[in-house]
């Protein structure tokens, strides 16, 4: 009985917050976009110029333009993101958010625009790890970024190796480089960063797909008008080729979802 009352109240609240984001954006002229500034190729703050670059930085500007607003970036990470969305600290997360059932319970997702499998990064000096099968072996230490979808994925799939979840910026790289861990697990965009910036690193791609994951835009739960608006944006950038052009610019073309 109480449960149904709460459910009713919740749905009433949802009804009340209908079109909340669009109204707010129209009123303030600002679109608040959640980004992870460490996400190379997606939303990355260049340490030299202190400016933001990446696929989702460009696309968020395009979306804000369509809404007649200016983008306002809210820096977060995958641990805090869903609290930020639920707490309405940002209107949308444009940071290649991997769609998982757990996450779909706490936020609404647009249709996917990227799809990436996972990759492992080892140091060059580590000659023993040659293929994906060498990772899950006794004594191996695998690092993941806390809060990313790789954390539950690896917790689920690793049998013999031990998992280390870290949260500090660039901690994954240091753990592997110092030898405290053997590999860290990341996705396609981040592996491209390693390829471009760290010549001590080697990329180990899985022999078989491990878990290709859809990346989508996440919005606060319950604002269906806003979700529709975002969906329309995603469909449009796929159709008019903007997504492919921008992805090509950031070397992400291989993982674009074209529908």
């Amino acid at each position, binding site marked *: 009985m109480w449960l149904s009352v709460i459910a009713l109240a919740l749905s009433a609240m949802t009804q009340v917050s209908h079109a909340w984001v669009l109204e707010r954006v129209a009123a303030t002229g600002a679109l608040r976009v959640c980004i992870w500034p460490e996400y190379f190729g997606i939303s990355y703050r260049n340490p030299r110029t202190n400016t933001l670059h990446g696929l989702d930085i460009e696309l968020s500007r395009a979306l804000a333009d369509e809404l007649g607003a200016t983008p306002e970036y809210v820096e977060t990470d995958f641990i805090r993101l869903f609290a930020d969305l639920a707490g309405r600290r940002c209107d949308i997360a444009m940071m290649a958010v991997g769609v998982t059932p757990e996450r779909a319970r706490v936020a609404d997702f647009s249709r996917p625009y990227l799809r990436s499998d996972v990759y492992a990064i080892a140091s060059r*000096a580590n000659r023993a790890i040659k293929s994906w099968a060498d990772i899950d072996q006794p004594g191996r230490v695998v690092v993941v970024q806390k809060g990313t979808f790789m954390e539950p994925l690896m917790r689920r799939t690793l049998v013999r190796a031990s998992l280390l979840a870290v949260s500090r910026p660039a901690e994954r790289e240091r753990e592997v480089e110092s030898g405290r861990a053997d590999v860290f697990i990341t996705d396609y965009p981040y592996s491209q960063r390693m390829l471009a910036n760290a010549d001590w690193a080697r990329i180990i791609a899985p022999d078989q797909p491990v878990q290709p994951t859809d990346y989508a835009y996440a919005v606060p739960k319950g604002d269906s008008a806003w979700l529709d608006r975002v969906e329309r944006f995603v469909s449009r950038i796929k159709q008019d080729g903007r997504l492919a052009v921008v992805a090509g610019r950031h070397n992400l073309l291989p993982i674009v979802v074209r529908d």
Partner: protein
Amino acid sequence: MTVGFDKPAEPRRYRLLFLGMLAGALALIWSAWWVGLRFVEQSAEASLRKRIDLDSLLLEDHVSRTLDIVTARLQSVVALTRPGALDAGSLSPAGLDELIFEDRMLRSLSLVDPAGQVILSSNPANLGTRVPAGTVPDPAAPAGRDGMRFGQLLPYRDLFQIGTAKQPPDVRLWVASRSVDLDGRTLHWLAVLNPSVFENLWSRLDEDEATELALFDYRGQRIATHHGVVPESVPLGRELIAQAETRMNGSFEPAGAPLWVSFRASTKHPVIVASIGDPGRLQLQLAAERGGFTFAALAATALVMLAVALLYRGYLKYEASVLETANQARAIGAHLMSSESTPDGRIIRVNDALLQATGFTRDEVLGQTHRLFNSGLHTAEFYAGMWKTLASGRIWKGTFRNRRRDGTHLWFNATIMPFHDAWGHMERYVALYTDVSESIVLAERFEKERRMRHELVRVNRDLANHANTDPLTGAASRRAFDAFTRQAIEVCREQARPLTLLLLDLDGFKQVNDLHGHAAGDEVLRIVTRRWAAEIRGSDLLARLGGEEFCVVLPDTPASDALAVAEGLLAATASAPVHIGSSEYLHITVSVGMASGVIRARGELDHLLQEADAALYQAKHAGRNRVCAAESCELPRLQSSGR
């Protein structure tokens, strides 16, 4: 074409030249190949030696600075290790972790009590671990200047694994330690070092399989190696330590392995960096380059051989054409006289035939103009015409009357050709001559003879009237004979040519008269005279000297030719029976006395007539129907039918 071609072709010399050219080019190519290979090999070896020297220099610096940082970290924790620090929490696992967080060289920092137990560590897993004696730096062993001790390389990721199950073989640790006295106890700070930090750097610096980088400690054990090309079995460590005992850096070739080692000992830490070059692998790398060189040399060889073959083929064609030209020139030179002169007329070449004909020597002729041969018999217009033709580039042909050295004259048929060089400029004149003097003299003589004969024919014709003709036979009369012989003697004298007389007397003519009557005799005379007249030339004369005696005068005819005429007369006489009257036929023959000689006066003719008469007598006496000269008699050609 050089008309006086006097340089023979030298096939042997040119063939040798071509062979020499080919051999020279091939020698050049293959010596360049050899030198190039040596150069590439030597420069590759030199650059390998240089690189390993440079590698050891740079890496020693990097290793020393990295270990400096390790030293500094240990010094800072030693400085923090004060009485009560452990209890006050100023030294905490989290604090230690924060200290080494950014450091890729350090995996963990741990504090070990005298019993070997870890009492504090940046890695919580290490806490309580008992570190077996001898596996980490022996606290009793003498420390370095800065209080540092370095231990063995162990196959673990961190302290807590020591003595546990077997770990992945590629994860190794190296321990540095520093002792600290606290509250009367000697504790040890252990830093677990990551040897891979060097390997990571090295693999970025150097992907060349011909070089290997290695870090050794003073025990001679390998702390880190690069791509593991040099097998662990090569006992480099011991030799390296021996070398490092006497010098801080240098290079050597270890016994038992074909390797070049450049080493550098750290000035602060007990490590030696070695850069190892493998000349064997260098050779493998060079093999490809060597193949390229050899291919280039082979290609160049093929090209050179082709080029020389083409040149040689061209030369053979040229040689054939030169020989052909030379042969033609020789043939022309053998047949014709020739000379060459400059455009201004100076003689630059004459052949032997011309010298022979003119009687000059070559020295007298060369450098002179053709005026040397000028007989002075041609007009200025003649030469002007010739020069005009030559100046217009055309060939001039004509006949010269030239002067010999002895002043006598020569007739030359000349063809003068202007020769042009490749640019069309007048280069020289080439003149070819034939000596036509003889034919001109012959022609003159022939013309004279023709005129004389014509005169005799005219005389003959003039004499052909009634007064000079025998009415019965139509032959010349005695008077005409005299007139003709006068003229013939003149011809004979002028030309010093022999004159021949044939005296003819019909055999048995008296019997014809006696048996058949005078009319038959006259008929016989008429018929044989007609037959004889057909046998002689228009310039000869048949005269009836009396009765049945006739004489044929053959001017300008030697005895041999006259004999043929006489035989013709014999044959004509006996050729067919003579028809007298209605059905009577007589077989008639004649005897001929022949006399021949060069007559200059009338008296000599009479003498010749007597000679002919004597010969006629001889013919009669010898049996008739024959021709006799002073010496011998000839029977008629158709003797059988004559009898």
